[in-house]
């Protein structure tokens, strides 16, 4: 326990986390600090491209494990399954309507790529290697959760109509295409390709992540300020309990599949993280009756900072104990 806390402490004073905290504080204090939308989008394109590319290079270097397919299947399973658990939990712990609960559940089945990147950074900082294809697992986990949520709503007979073209849109979502595309480019060009562009995608990576997290902090803070009072204690507790449950399931699967320590931690992080980009946009189309400020506040205002500060070091510590790594 002590070890976990000191790990968490060390994690907390990294420039990355402090940048997030700065953004959060600035927004809560109502500073007019803002990062232009285009710049924020540019940074997220950079991060997705870099992380995908590096994942592809790692795969090209180490070859395709037999565990690769198993892990992707596990990821798909998690993304389909976790919303069901989240939904049951929400019905138990909160008074949310069926539609709101389903919308929130979709977020927790899907993933947050920034949380994943932060997890990768922590592993790198401790020199723990992870399977390169975890990026592909991340991509695989983005969309299925949305289908589960729609099924949950449809089962209740409340509509949640499956818009024609929605599945296509989900799979061709910009961030999935970029992540997977960069992964393939990395896999094809390998170390040689990485060398050509590493002073762009490797060297400045952490610095860009700082500014990006500054922006996430600003957005999370503004969200929290505006939705004060929208959320009850039950919902907030859910947003902390759910990642713990998801991480535990992720841990179990990781160990069963035989992932390395790093890979297991990343599967935990993916399971525990909640989407705040792909899923909210899909929800506006597919479940317009759901209240955006509920799912955004839970995912971005509670779960995201929790994972970033306490969650990741916790998952790492637990995985170390369990795998003996």
């Amino acid at each position, binding site marked *: 326990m002590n070890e976990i806390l000191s790990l968490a402490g060390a994690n907390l004073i990294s420039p990355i986390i402090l940048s997030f905290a700065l953004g959060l504080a600035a927004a809560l204090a109502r500073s007019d600090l803002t990062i232009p939308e285009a710049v924020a989008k540019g940074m997220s394109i950079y991060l997705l491209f870099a992380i995908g590319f590096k994942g592809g290079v790692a795969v090209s270097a180490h070859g395709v494990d037999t565990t690769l397919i198993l892990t992707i299947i596990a990821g798909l399973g998690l993304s389909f399954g976790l919303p069901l658990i989240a939904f049951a939990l929400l019905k138990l712990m909160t008074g949310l309507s069926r539609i709101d609960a389903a919308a929130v559940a979709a977020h927790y089945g899907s993933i947050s790529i920034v949380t994943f990147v932060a997890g990768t950074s922590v592993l790198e900082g401790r020199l723990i290697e992870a399977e390169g294809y975890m990026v592909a697992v991340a991509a695989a986990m983005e969309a299925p959760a949305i289908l589960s949520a729609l099924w949950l709503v449809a089962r209740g007979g409340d509509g949640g109509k499956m818009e024609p073209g929605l599945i296509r849109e989900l799979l061709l979502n910009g961030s999935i295409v970029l992540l997977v595309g960069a992964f393939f480019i990395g896999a094809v060009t390998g170390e040689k390709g990485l060398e050509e562009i590493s002073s762009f995608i490797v060297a400045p990576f952490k610095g860009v992540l700082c500014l990006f997290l500054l922006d996430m902090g600003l*957005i999370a803070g503004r969200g929290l300020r505006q939705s004060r009072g929208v959320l009850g204690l039950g919902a907030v507790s859910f947003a902390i309990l759910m990642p713990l449950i998801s991480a535990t399931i992720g841990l179990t699967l990781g160990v069963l599949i035989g992932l390395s320590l790093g890979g297991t931690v990343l599967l935990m992080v993916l399971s525990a993280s909640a989407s705040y980009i792909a899923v909210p946009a899909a929800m506006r189309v597919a479940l317009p009756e759901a209240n955006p400020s509920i799912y955004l506040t839970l995912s971005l205002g509670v779960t995201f900072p929790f994972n970033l500060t306490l969650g990741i070091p916790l998952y790492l510590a637990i995985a170390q104990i369990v795998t003996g790594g």
Partner: protein
Amino acid sequence: METHTAKRVEIVIEAPLERRLTKALTEAGVTGYTILPVRGGSGRSGQWSRAGQVGQSGMVAVVCLIKPERLDGLLEAAFAVVEKHIGVVSITDAQVLRAERF
């Protein structure tokens, strides 16, 4: 200069719905529209600003100039999309140059 009567319809709608709206308009035979970015706003679902958003979110404003007789078709097409979503529709009387374009 010679001008012609028209209607100016302004639809403020969530960005993820943009494609669906323009598709519905096109299917209703409306091929002319202009899409303006929106920086922020306030309505029944609260206040928001572009800076407080992640991803493809926020709203856009779609402006259509049409012949008055086509107004109803347009409104029905637009309403079908806007109905369950966040957004507003307004109509003003207008004059246009070059009527053959509308």
